[in-house]
């Protein structure tokens, strides 16, 4: 869980392109914010011993999700789908690094 938390936070910082910023957290959820060209997307990243999941939380009109189901955006914008894989990859890379260090 500690490794997951650190991987998520470092993944936000070292995200390719625009880094995500910290919006808050609870016991197993980190809230992150992504600002890009005047638009904003908020995420909740939930983690436990087994997995890390990124959920869409809210966005400005430019990047609003048109079809949301159980926190997963099924119909987003071109920009959203173009840049969000970077964040997924960033967390995976940081998780690998954190595991190698421990």
């Amino acid at each position, binding site marked *: 869980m500690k490794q997951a938390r*650190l991987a998520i*936070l470092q993944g936000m910082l070292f995200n390719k392109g625009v880094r995500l*910023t*910290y*919006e*808050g957290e609870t016991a197993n959820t980190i809230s992150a914010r992504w600002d890009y060209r005047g638009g904003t997307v908020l995420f909740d990243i939930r983690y436990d011993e087994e997995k890390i999941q990124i959920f869409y939380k809210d966005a400005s*009109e430019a990047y609003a999700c048109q*079809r*949301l189901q159980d926190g997963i955006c099924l119909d987003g914008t071109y920009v959203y789908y173009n840049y969000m894989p970077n964040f997924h990859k960033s967390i995976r890379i940081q998780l690998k690094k954190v595991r190698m260090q421990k």
Partner: protein
Amino acid sequence: MTLSFSSFVRIACLALLLSIHTSANALISEESSYNGKIVVPPFVPDVRSLLIQSATRHGWKVIDEKAGELTFELRHVKANALVVAKAAYSKTEIRLDKKSEGKLDATVAASAEARTYQRWMIGLRREIGLNLLLLAIKDAGGTVRERTPVAVEAD
């Protein structure tokens, strides 16, 4: 054509289900993109320093200070723009608000657009969020390169 009550209920339930699955959450509006509450986590040692460091890194200047409240000003000569922001803070939360915006030199016609002021406010909020992220990484046991603090101009 009249609908039976059961048909009406079925249609209403279907409409409700569709609205749950198809609509996204409430959209972030222009002002709420920067003035929503920022929850300060316990690992932040000094909220006031965090705010001042965040603001001064992007050219904001502290122009007033009261207990639990800082007022910043951003003067953008090229855009002929002046914006004043207020940050109300406690150990547990921060709230940003734009107090005023306008021309730096009233005799000059050109000025910044409304979205420019919004972008500067969002930039201020982002910088606070970035500094919170760096502190969170340290709290999680990671290491981050120390950012060179920006020298604050003395009056």
